[in-house]
């Protein structure tokens, strides 16, 4: 189980502005440990999904080119204050994490 995410969801006019900060090493698999000279195994988020008010709004496939502790932001039309935002991710080692927030 990964570390908790930080999710911010705020109505700006009729559009919900959603920002997700995920805690993940996002190791590319191409770096070497300077001490042992062995490659550090790849470890990254492969996919994540976002639901707003029970509706899937984002389905993503991500790779090792995404930075450590990545931030994703997007705007959703048709959401309203009080809607529940559910974010789930899964990484290449089978680890996963789900967090919730409410649109403010």
């Amino acid at each position: 189980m990964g570390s908790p995410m930080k999710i911010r969801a705020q109505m700006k006019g009729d559009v919900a502005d959603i920002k997700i900060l995920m805690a993940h090493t996002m190791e590319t698999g191409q770096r070497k440990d300077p001490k042992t000279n062995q490659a550090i195994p790849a470890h990254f988020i492969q996919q994540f999904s976002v639901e707003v008010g029970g509706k899937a709004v984002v389905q993503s496939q991500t790779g090792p080119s995404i930075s450590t502790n990545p931030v994703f932001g997007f705007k959703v039309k048709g959401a309203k204050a009080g809607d529940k935002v559910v974010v789930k991710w899964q990484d290449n080692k089978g680890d996963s994490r789900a967090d919730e927030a409410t649109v403010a």
Partner: protein
Amino acid sequence: MRQALIAATAFALALATQPVVAQNKPAPAATAKKAAKPAAAAPVEEKDAATVEFEKFRTMMEESNPAELFEAQGEDFWKSIRGPKQVSLATSCDLGLGVGIVKGAYVQMPRYFADAGKVMDAERRIVWCMIEKQGFKEADIMKQPFASGSYTPEPTSLVTYVAANSKDMKFAVPLKDPRVKEVYEIGREVTNHRAGPYDFSCNTCHGADGKRIRMQNLPNIATPKGATTAVMGWPGYRMTGGVMLTQQWRMGDCFRQQRFPQPKYVSDTITSLLTYMTANANGATYKGPGIKR
């Protein structure tokens, strides 16, 4: 190989000279228009295009600062029962405002702690509490005091949590306390001390206005404005490497850059420097844990 090196050097030189030209250009114009205004301040105020663009980038990153992740981790460490003595810091550690009180503590440190008999900065106080109250071994904490790779030391997360709880509050180091004042004066002397193979002191780079290293403007830590720039944004999340770093690290690294032997983690020297800088920034509003390139 050799040619490539020369080409690279030439490119680097071209890069290095450009901003100098850009920065100095407006100065004569400004003097011509308003002779009464001191011209010396102009190069500092003038921002080149790269600085402006970088500031835009920084503002964008500040909106979703990964430092928040370390803050959450630090909060967990602060509140949970840990260590050989099985106590939580929230019920045992006094950051100067009473046991367990975190709100506003960061901007009022360094301060004098009677139980330790020393002036301490936030990180040093947290480490002291971990050792004295929770029973952690000093040697274990000293082994790797700074973040590297995916490793983040516990005091780093803790100081991020404590610092975040002073967001939007004004720096108020209690300089009226003679013991703090004494350490402040020592800090001033440390910044003046020239030594090492380069015969550098802190003030070689940070003791005058308008100095620059490559693209970075260097703050003059003797002035309130410069000191504010220097203490703002620490502890900070460094995008290069994705690590959370503290002021203790920053101070140690300054000594390394001067080719000095690095002072010990949470030592008197570092506290005195932090007292000097933070007190010079007294009155400025702290913006919380920051983000660094």
